[in-house]
Each structure stands twice: as structure tokens, then as C-alpha cells.
């Protein structure tokens, strides 16, 4: 039995426990929305896909290519800690999983079989782009951006 003098202490501890668990529980129920596009960059002359215009502006500083084509658009909705799998044209799959919410953004786990296993902070209006996977006569870029 809990003595009467200890009741306030126990109550304070219980309240503290509830308060600390509350953000975590709120995170668990939150739906994360992510926009993922897969583009193919190539040295074969061709157009820059209008749907990849923004990505092109980010890539052209560091990469030289003559055409950019959007191959896949994926809008992913997933609860916290739940994984979504995106099949790439190369046959590899990219596995995406939100791990935690942070004031700076969403901490995401990104895994590509035998090639990459990383955790990145996905910040608002700042995509994370995975590039370098060879496909046909060029390379793939996979851009992941928070939709929230």
C-alpha cells in the first residue's frame, strides 16, 4: 500500500511519465507525407522534363547531362516507423521509413539493397537526392521531399 505522504510524489512521477510519453504517442499516430520522384539523367540529347525543372536547377551545378526525364512519381503516406518500398527501374528497391519527428524535420531511414543504408533529416523545402544508380545510358536520381 502507498502511504499518504508518498501519494503526491507518486502522482508527480506518473504525471511526468504521461507528459513525456505524450509527444511520442502523438508522433506514432502522425501520418507522414513524402513526395518521391525518380528521374533519369542522360548524355543523350533530349529535353529537360518540365516536371523535373526544380530538380534540374539543383543538379545542374554539379552534374552535366543533356536530358532529364521523370520516370516515376510517388506520393507516399505512411505512419511513423512504417516502411514503404519503391521499386526502381534498375530492379533495386528503395525502402523509406520515417523514424522520428524533429523541430528541424523528419528523420528518415533510406535503404537501397547492397548500396545504401542511411538516416537523413528531411527538412521542409529541402529535398534529399540520391544519385548515381546506373540505368541504361545514364544515371538515376531519386529526390525525396517532405510534403508537409
Amino acid at each position: 500500500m502507498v502511504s499518504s505522504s508518498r501519494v503526491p510524489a507518486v502522482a508527480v512521477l506518473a504525471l511526468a511519465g504521461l507528459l513525456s510519453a505524450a509527444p511520442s504517442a502523438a508522433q506514432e499516430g502522425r501520418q507522414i507525407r513524402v513526395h518521391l520522384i525518380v528521374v533519369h539523367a542522360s548524355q543523350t540529347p533530349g529535353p529537360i522534363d518540365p516536371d523535373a525543372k526544380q530538380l534540374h536547377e539543383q543538379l545542374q551545378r554539379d552534374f552535366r547531362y543533356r536530358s532529364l526525364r521523370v520516370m516515376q512519381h510517388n506520393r507516399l503516406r505512411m505512419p511513423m516507423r512504417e516502411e514503404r518500398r519503391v521499386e526502381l527501374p534498375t530492379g533495386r528497391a528503395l525502402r523509406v521509413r520515417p523514424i522520428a519527428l524533429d523541430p528541424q524535420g523528419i528523420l528518415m531511414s533510406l535503404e537501397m539493397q547492397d548500396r545504401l543504408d542511411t538516416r537523413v533529416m528531411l527538412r521542409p523545402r529541402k529535398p534529399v537526392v540520391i544519385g548515381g544508380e546506373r540505368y541504361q545510358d545514364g544515371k538515376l536520381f531519386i529526390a525525396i521531399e517532405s510534403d508537409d
Partner: protein
Amino acid sequence: MTSCARVVDCLDAYHDGELAGLMRRRVERHLEHCSSCRREIAAASALGELLRESADAVMSPDLWSQIEPRLAPVDAASGVAPARSAPAVSWDRLRGLVRPLPWLVRPVAAAAAVALIVLVYWTGVGPEEAAGEGVVRWLDSYGNPVMLLEQPDATIIWLVDPVLDDVSMGGGFRRGVI
């Protein structure tokens, strides 16, 4: 004359200019007569100079073309390079090399730490904070080289093609070849 045994532990501090007063004069007097200790001081100075030069060295733009021919050929069928056997160097032998020059330990350890940092960055392996601003919290690329490009408006994780991409450790990422 002071024996070598009495000053050998101070040579490191003397070389680094950390000795003063009586102790410094004692080492200086010893060095006037002891060619063996003078050689060790000279060796330490030479090593320090070498480390400074290598830290200041600018990587050659054609570094990759120099490295590439030395890489093991890749088996066309399996796509795997044959494993290389490690040189047979025993720890006892290394320790024997280090013991006579105790002040070498610090610069060599510093150089080894720098080499390790470069290696981790180059291979992309290691559960480490890997990019600026803490964007990448953990990275494993299964032993393949990866470059992290932190742009103001995007974070790019580039899975480096060691044959095609123009990458040098000194100059960083220059151009991804599509």
C-alpha cells in the same frame, strides 16, 4: 657528460621547444657531445617537415589517373576485384620501430587519425555524423564510395562510380559523370 638515458625522455619536449631553464641547457650540453641523440632530433625534425608538407600539399588534378592503374582488375564475370593479402607486419616489429623514437608516436598517431577520417569519408562506411548541419545522421554504403553534397536547397547523396566519376580526396567532388 649526461647519459642518453637521462635525457631521452626529454628529447620530445626539447624538439617541440617545451623545455626551459636548466633542463633545456642540460639537453643542449648533451647534444653537443652525443651524435646519436642529435640524429634522433634531426629525424624528428625531418618527420615534422614531411607531415607539414603533406598537409599543405595540393592534390594533383590527375590523381585519379595515377591511382586507377594500380587498382586490382575486376573479374568481368563476377564484377568482383580479387582480394589482396595484407602485408605480414607483426605488432612486435612495429613496436620495435617506434620504441627508439618515442616522440614519433604523437605525430604518427595524428597522421593515422587524419588518414582514418579520410578513409571513413571516402568509403562512406561508419555510423558517424557524416555531413554538415547534421543532415545525414548515419551512413553505410556497403563499402562503396559515397559523396555527400550539401547544397543550400538540397542534400545530394551521390553513389560514386569509382571508374567514371571525377573525384579526388584533396579537391573533393568535382563532377559526377552521367
